[in-house]
């Protein structure tokens, strides 16, 4: 399975395949937020390049891995994949985050989108769907 979450301390967009066990994932995502905060606060440098945006494997739990990515505006993307899915390499995760970020900026460009609203963009959904299909 795989799960995409976009959040700014509260979820803006959640998409997962398959869709059961939501609660557990919610918990995971929220705990991962702590790790994200720890990572970004620890970065003292003023520069925030792409590599820093990608936080990498936040922590591997017993049966799934969590990857994090934070934008310059503190919007966090979290991807949760199960540990059995070894086909996903780090590069692929990075590219997924990049695509997510691009789609997210497109959503932001829409003047009708108020930052902080849940993301309801169809274009964004379609991009996430393609990524999910690729990953699973």
């Amino acid at each position, binding site marked *: 399975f795989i799960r995409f979450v976009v959040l700014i301390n509260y979820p803006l967009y959640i998409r997962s395949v398959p869709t059961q066990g939501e609660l557990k994932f919610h918990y995971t995502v929220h705990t991962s937020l702590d790790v994200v905060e720890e990572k970004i606060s620890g970065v003292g440098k003023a520069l925030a390049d792409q590599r820093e945006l990608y936080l990498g494997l936040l922590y591997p739990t017993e049966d799934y891995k969590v990857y994090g990515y934070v934008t310059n505006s503190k919007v966090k993307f979290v991807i949760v994949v199960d540990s059995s899915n070894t086909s996903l390499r780090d590069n692929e995760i990075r590219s997924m985050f990049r695509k997510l970020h691009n789609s997210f900026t*497109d959503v932001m460009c829409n003047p009708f989108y108020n930052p902080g609203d849940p993301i*309801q963009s169809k274009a964004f959904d379609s991009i996430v769907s393609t990524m999910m299909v690729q990953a699973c």
Partner: protein
Amino acid sequence: MDQGSAAGSGGTFISLSDTEQRCYSGLYALCQPDSSGKPAAGKVAELFRASQLPAETLHQVTEACGAKRLGYFGCGQFYVALKLMAAAQAGLPVRLESIAGELPLPVFVGITNELEMHYPNQPLTNESQSHILGSVAGSAPRPPADRPVLRHPDTSMDKQEAWSPPQSPGISPPRSPSAYRSYPYGAQRNGTDTLLAYDAKVPGRPSIPQENSSPSYYSVKLQPEQPVITRVASVERLVERVEVDYSDDPWRITEEQREYYTNQFRSLQPDLSALIMGTVAKNFFTKSKLPIPELSHIWELSDVDKDGALTFTEFCTAFHLIVARKNGYPLPETLPATLRPGFVEAGVVTAPPSEKILFGSVDLQVTSRPGVTAKQEARDESRKPEFSPKRIPEPHEKPIQHVSTLKPDSPQELDANMKSRTRPRSYSSTSIDDAMKKVEEPPTPPPRPQKTHSRASSLDLNKLFQQSGQGSRPSQHSLSAKSGWLPPPPALPPRPPATQIFSFLPGSEKSSQKAVQQPNFADFSKFREEQESSVRGLSTEDLTPPKSESTVVHQGHAPQKPVRRKLHPESQSATPPSATPYSAATLTKSSQRPPPKQKREIQMAIRKNRETNAVLTRLNSELQQQLKVVHRERVTLESQLELLRPVAST
């Protein structure tokens, strides 16, 4: 052939061969359409089952032919469905495109009789209408049917009409998708009248042979067909509405529309080559009163370079989508090909939609004619307050060409005929223009409304169209099709505020705000008229004391009492009458209202606004009184505090 319906079949101008027509008409007769031209659902279902297609396919067929949208099988839809079934039986996918070509007749097991020629005498409502539209030129008489307006009987007389006779006068509930197409603009105008006329006509018209089958034009547009069907529903609401289909493809920007969009663009950004910023565009499009998620989706579709700003092309696309949405078309998931930025150059000159447009698209066709550009422009100018010749010349020409998609062979004369005929009808188009303008609530409302009518455009667009129709602006016919596009949403805004006046006290603020907002969307002409009528409207009618007024007037401010009293009659009179007209007015779909009603409504609106105004004034004074009181108390308390302070400090 008789029924000519073949062409009409389901609006998508699918050309039907003679045999197909015969067969289809026979089947149609078999299905026993009732007086309104709708085949009995049971018989249709039976027929479908007899085709031995899997349920899924039948489902697709039903959807594709547009019957789902209409809720029943109109003549056009029926024919399209038959063709689709033939395609499915031949192994082709159930798509509108696949029926563009020649197909073997569908095989129906168990339904052998009547297939022959029962040429349905029944009015192919759908078809007749559609063809009336003028596909005269050979354009298979696409059943403009949907558009009741379809065309003027005069023009239809030609072959185009062939179909029309069977049309039932009804505004064409069956609006076949083709009808949409063919209706390119103006059709609506006369629609009802023409429809009636059509009924009388005999299908003997020039065989609406499918040759005309303008399959080309319509088949291309098949995709939009479905949206067209939906539009039908919305159009129906609009009542006479503009069938909006300007040139068979709702996703195509016609010349007039482009002009309008250009004007709107100019109002936001004088330089055509510059960008409109996102916030500016947002405010502008928000005025169209579409829900935000839809606007967001439209933005995503139209902002192809994803820069958060709209170029002129993107702006036209977005505007067009908004207009389409307002007319009831569902938003596409992806940008239709005709709206892509690179499309304009294409200059679709496929099967000239002219046929369909013949009547309806009066403008379109006229314009579409390669040679007619000039005329169109002339008309456009008359129609639109500003005609910007500078508009991207390419797009204009292209749309013109494609709009008219008039078949290359379509005789120019036909257009001329139509043009002349349609001209009187142009009013509807004008109204559409106005409606369009109103939708967007351009910053410069005053210039807009004038074209078609002085009446508050904010009122029901239907009324507008009717008025315009009555006004019969000679030049404006072209946009009749387009008129269908703009639903009268703009008319709505003025209404709600009026109704709010009823709840004076609690809503007085709100209503006042709304009243203020009214001008945003309302046609300024309306207000002008209101002013005139307000004088009349102020006649006091003795009615029960206004509810809110009494509440507001709590304080016994002597000076206010007389004011209140004065206002009472106004409010009283205004509220009750306004309530009704407003509720009615809010129904944009309501049938046309005669001008006097509109005047009354306007007067009511004025009265209401006045009442609101008075109420707010009273409120204001009362609150100020309270403020004074509170102030005095404060001063008292402060002085006491001062006295006590020395005591406390010690």
